[in-house]
């Protein structure tokens, strides 16, 4: 009967119930949307590392993320290839550049040059074209979603990057960087564009042989190249994300707006549930007089909080799914790792329970004697 009473009371006070549900929807949607965008940005931050196909990245000494890396001697590649555990090692040459658009405006880009024929560290998904286009000396790729920023180039268009002639040869998919538009090309072109001499490279990608012991291989690489940093790919990815989150203020910005979403939602829940109890004092007094223990009152309000949470979570995720669906494939970064929704839902349900604490405190204090006044 307590559950039935709780639900009937919610249904009866529709307006306040809707208010509390709105608080839950606010938490689910605002926080979920923030998390989706932040995760979308995360994928941008470490996009090159995550899609490299390499097991270990060699970067300049003392660097633990891809952004603060300097350059390395290219001859390290040959030394690495000599090791037993290593299937392949390939250099990547990257540099900043300015792309001159068809309308003669300049757009900063990050040029990433990869070595044929393996093209390790290069594009992994194409809207138009494939890796073979990079065999042409002038060829560059542009991401499908970056076309507008780069002046709507067509396949075959000739552009200049840092004054060097380049030809748009393919459109990539999902290759969008966090710190500038990504443009892939071959090693040679990248050296021309970035002015990188042949004996230097930006990083070296290492793939281990199947069955190799990663820890042992890493130790061997580190002793072989004491003046460079060797980092497993997942670690470099995490470090890179951490670097951006802590160094650019993006972490505190997202943290703050997430917090605002939570606070606004919880305050709405607290106030509406408290108001409901105040409006229904007489009902609670009657229940107490009839024989409800304090715990029965607590259970009734708790059922209400859980029900409000349940409905709000359903509605909130419905909206959020609409948002994610609507923005997928758009320029707005959004990505929702599958573990987030259940955790988000559980924490929000927890917030509903916490948010009902004040209402519960008030409800159990209602004197049964007040039913007689």
């Amino acid at each position, binding site marked *: *009967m307590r559950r039935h009473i709780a639900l009937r009371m919610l249904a*009866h006070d529709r307006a306040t119930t809707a208010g509390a549900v709105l608080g839950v929807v606010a938490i689910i949607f605002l926080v979920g949307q923030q998390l989706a965008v932040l995760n979308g940005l995360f994928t941008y931050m470490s996009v090159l590392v995550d899609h490299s196909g390499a097991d270990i990245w060699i970067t300049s000494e003392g660097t633990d993320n891809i952004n603060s890396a300097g350059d390395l001697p290219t001859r390290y590649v040959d030394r690495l290839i000599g090791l037993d555990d290593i299937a392949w090692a390939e250099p990547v040459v990257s540099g900043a550049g300015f792309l001159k658009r068809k309308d003669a405006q300049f757009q900063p880009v990050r040029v990433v040059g990869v070595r044929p024929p393996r093209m390790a560290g290069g594009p992994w998904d194409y809207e138009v074209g494939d890796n073979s286009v990079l065999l042409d000396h002038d060829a560059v790729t542009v991401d499908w979603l970056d076309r507008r920023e780069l002046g709507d180039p067509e396949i075959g268009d000739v552009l200049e990057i840092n004054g060097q002639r380049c030809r748009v040869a393919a459109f990539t998919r999902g290759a969008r960087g966090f710190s500038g538009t990504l443009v892939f090309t071959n090693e040679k072109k990248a050296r021309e564009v970035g002015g990188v001499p042949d004996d230097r490279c930006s990083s070296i990608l290492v793939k281990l042989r199947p069955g190799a012991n990663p820890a042992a291989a890493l130790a061997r690489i580190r002793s072989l190249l004491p003046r460079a940093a060797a980092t497993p790919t997942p670690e470099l990815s995490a470090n890179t994300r951490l670097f951006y989150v802590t160094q650019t203020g993006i972490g505190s910005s997202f943290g703050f707006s997430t917090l605002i979403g939570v606070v606004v939602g919880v305050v709405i829940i607290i106030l509406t549930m408290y108001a409901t109890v105040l409006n229904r004092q007489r009902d609670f007094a009657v229940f107490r007089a009839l024989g409800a223990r304090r715990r029965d009152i607590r259970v009734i309000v708790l059922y209400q909080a859980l029900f409000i949470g349940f409905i709000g979570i359903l509605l909130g995720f419905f909206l959020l799914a609409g948002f994610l669906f609507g923005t997928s494939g758009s320029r707005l970064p959004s990505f929702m790792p599958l573990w987030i929704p259940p955790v988000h839902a559980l924490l929000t349900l927890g917030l509903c329970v916490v948010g009902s604490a004040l209402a519960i405190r008030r409800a159990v204090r209602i004197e049964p004697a007040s039913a007689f006044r």
Partner: protein
Amino acid sequence: MEPVIRLEGVARDFWDGVRRRRVLQPTDLEFWPGELTVLAGPSGSGKTTLLTIMGLVLAPSAGRVWVAGEEVTGLSEDALATVRLKRFGFVFQSAGLVPALSALDNALAGRSIQSDRVAPGLRERALELFDELGIADYARAMPTQLSGGQQQRVAIARALLGEPAVLLCDEPTSALDVDSSRVVLDTLKRLARDPKRGVVLVTHDPRVFPYADRLVKIEDGRIASDTKDKAEG
């Protein structure tokens, strides 16, 4: 036979904002099953205070209370709630139905408030009571769709559903017209004939007095007269 409720020296003080005021002077009273006791007195004389102390709803400032021979003085709030649930039925001045619940659910809510379920057979019993009280057609109605007299009868059904040893009613007819009052009072009178059940009825309305098996008058927080004493004395 033992009294269903026994009060010994119960008194109640209230803080009226300036000082503590004794609203109920130390009182000894016993209530027996099978009779309808009317507690009468002017407004502010302490009738509701006495009734709520008897009903274990209000704690006395002094004195001791027994219910069915067992002392309940000093029991925890939750233990008292359980005694109320098991022994007493309450009828409030303004029915005290919960607007969110249908008439039937209101009746069931009293007995079932300590659980998530409704005991088997309780629903059928409630419908029987509705039938006996002449409100069988209104089981599904919401309280706002009922007249004052119908609401009060739903409240009586709710109070009776727990098979209480005592029915405690605080001015159950003061909000009703003459006809509805008569229906409610006749019902209570009939219920009090059950030798296992007592009815205590608080009122300031002398028209209720003829229904009384025993009439206790209160003035200024004191028992001014009790027909039982006269009968004995």
